[in-house]
């Protein structure tokens, strides 16, 4: 975006005998124009801003307020200070959900971004034209399918009589067949797999767009120097995609830490608490247990946690752009 031209006092100095005053008046008139433009700008933004304030900022502030209260959602509110936060930190079940969320980061974030990089660079190199378009579309499809429907379908696929186990049995791997979503060791990776399926397309398409913007002459000169695919990938593609990778990581890490829909539809947190994530606990605490205060405290902590994880990613992906 081009920076708006700034009115500067120096440019207004003239041969007038009262240069300073004139410059000042000129400056204020210019600034009036700018201010008017700004006011018009604000007018345009106002409707969106109002909605944003009403449906995003207000609930956010209210949640922070609720997190200091004991409240069942209907009756009187009691101020309890930081007790709800202490409860979250004290309760191993609640704390456990946060650990589960970090395990999900591996599946929702690291795998899709890594795999997305590889797939994008392969598509860019091999499958240009129609084949590339088809590959992009197929990979992006999961983004279009409602997550609830996807969760239900994956539930069928991963069930004991489901397709995945049928395939395993067909190729003689029946010892691996199991109820993936009902197994204590495998439920979380299975949920993670659904996340990979959903987010791989998003990352691939975003990274592919980034790759197409890289100057082809860089690759050409690398090839003249005898660089192979891997060298190109490590020395050109990855460094120049830093910002796109940053965006992918940001979006997917948030998807992992704030996961709700995929988990709720596929396992609802079970078996035991092996796939319970903060989103599920917040929902149960608020709507089933009617502990609005505790639920809000967990939600606020989740938000802080997301910020703590996301800000370094933002910082690193922004720094020292060539």
């Amino acid at each position, binding site marked *: *975006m081009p920076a708006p031209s700034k009115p500067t006092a120096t440019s207004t100095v003239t041969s007038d005998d009262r240069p300073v005053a004139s410059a000042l008046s000129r400056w204020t008139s210019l600034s009036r124009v700018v201010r008017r433009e700004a006011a018009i700008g604000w007018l345009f933004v106002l409707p969106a801003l109002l909605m944003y304030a009403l*449906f*995003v*900022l207000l*609930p*956010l502030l*209210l*949640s922070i307020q*609720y997190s200091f209260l004991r409240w*069942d*959602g*209907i*009756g009187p509110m009691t101020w309890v200070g930081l007790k709800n936060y202490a409860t979250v930190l004290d309760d191993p079940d609640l704390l456990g959900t946060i650990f589960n969320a970090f395990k999900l980061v591996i599946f929702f974030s690291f795998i899709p971004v890594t795999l997305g990089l590889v797939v994008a660079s392969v598509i860019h190199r091999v499958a240009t034209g129609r084949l590339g378009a088809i590959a992009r579309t197929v990979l992006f499809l999961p983004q279009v399918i409602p997550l609830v429907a996807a969760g239900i379908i994956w*539930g069928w696929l*991963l*069930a*004991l009589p489901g397709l995945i186990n049928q395939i395993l049995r067909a190729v003689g791997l029946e010892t691996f067949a*199991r*109820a993936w*979503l*009902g*197994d*204590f060791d495998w439920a979380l990776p299975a949920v993670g797999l659904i996340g990979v399926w959903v987010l791989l397309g998003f990352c691939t398409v975003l990274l592919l767009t980034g790759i197409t913007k890289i100057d082809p002459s860089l690759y050409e000169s690398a090839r003249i120097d005898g660089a192979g695919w891997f060298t190109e990938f490590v020395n050109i593609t990855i460094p120049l995609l830093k*910002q796109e990778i*940053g*965006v992918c990581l*940001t979006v997917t890490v*948030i998807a992992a830490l*704030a996961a*709700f829909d995929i988990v709720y*539809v596929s*396992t*609802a*947190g*079970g*078996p*035991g*608490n092996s796939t319970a994530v903060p989103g599920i606990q*917040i*929902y*149960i*605490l*608020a*709507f*089933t*247990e*009617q502990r*609005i205060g505790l639920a*809000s405290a967990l*939600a*606020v902590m*989740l*938000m802080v946690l*997301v*910020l703590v994880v*996301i800000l370094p990613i*933002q910082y690193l*992906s*922004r720094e020292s*752009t060539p």
Partner: protein
Amino acid sequence: MNKKSVLWSLASLLVLTSMLLSACGASATTAAPAATEAPATDAPTEAATEPPVATEAPTEPAASAGPSCGTDPVVLKASFETGFDIPFKLAEEFTKQYPNVTWDIQQDQFTNLINSTPRLLSGDNPPDLLRLPTMVTFAEQGLLMNLDDYATAFGWDEWPVPQLNQNRVAEDGSRGSGALYAMGLNYSLTGIYYNKELAAQIGMTESPKTVAEFEELLAKAKDAGLLPIMQWGSAKSGMGLAFPLQNLMAAYGPVEPINDWIFQKPGATIDTPTNLIAAQHLEQWIKNGYFPPDINAIEYTDANARFNQGEGVFLFNGDWQNAGHDTAMAGNVGFFLMPPAEAGGAPAAMSAPLTYGIAANAKNADCAAFFLNWVGTNDEARTINVNIGGSNPGGPLGATIPPAAAGSITNETLAAGPVVGEAGTSMDFIANATSAIFAQGWTPELQKMVGGQQDAAGLLKAVQEEYLRQLEQ
């Protein structure tokens, strides 16, 4: 690009967190779908908002001078549960008999009722009659009408005591005694369903008389390469092993302490010596492979579908599922109550009313109460209740229960009802003790037991701790 990526991430961050937060900020309320709620059946419900045209001449209004619907036009505002035909059919029949009464019905899924009911009740125009997803909180918050006066007027006080007791809430918030806040449209019963063909294969000629006999049958089924018990256990439906567990508890110990625990009587505990024996039996059943290996991933509807298709000799469930079994395995399904530990003992069963209440500010409370009385006393209503609901219609002492269609499993479940009634061994569900005890207590702990991560003693201890934690708030 820098700005873009920051903006993008901030935008998504804010949207996501605010979604979570605003979800929590919304005024929320009670209760998970607990075990008494038969997860929604597939039966489509009619849009019953349109009152059927009266074809018959009006019968006389209420008996004598008691509360009634009068003769002036009345529009009963109602909130029903989607997925169950029974209230809609009853409403239709009621209008046939009392044409001055028409209905304004809104319906929703049970899980949505949990969220919407407090707002409905506290609003300006609350429903006269409503399906209650839970009761205690609404009663305590003064949102529900105390039905004691109607109970006196209609003589409900003389109906069999257990029918009404589950709908009473005491001053201290415990259930089982105190003022009446709801009536049951009908009374469901749970027990053990069996596949007659498979049962014959393992030599079962009559229903087992003791737990030991039942366990013999389970072992035989296992030896014959059959799945002994089909049951659901996914956290999405709630853990179905709560059914056999509670049945075992009632087989090895008295039902009163179990009901006390469910009704939140002071000092009640689930961690008792007889309950430990029950939990140990269940643990042994799991270890013996009597349940499907994938039980932790099986949902309620899948378990029923697989049982109907011939997987599993036995299934612990309730009579709300009767119509489904009748359709899918007509003539091949049988029912018996969980046998007692000792021969000659009384069998026990979980049994719960389909609770309907009246809003504290209802405009047509008299008419709604008259309807509730009519459901229990009118022959046509009782017939509809049996044929469509599959459950006991309750009602006055000594009222005959209309027979179900010949060959229906409902005849067997109805016959079992009085056995429990006379023995006084009916229980509410351990999953209903608090609004979240099922989601946060029984389900995860029983799933852990299936996964070998929890034993019988640990299960009861963990659930009791969770129970106390939830009561403490």
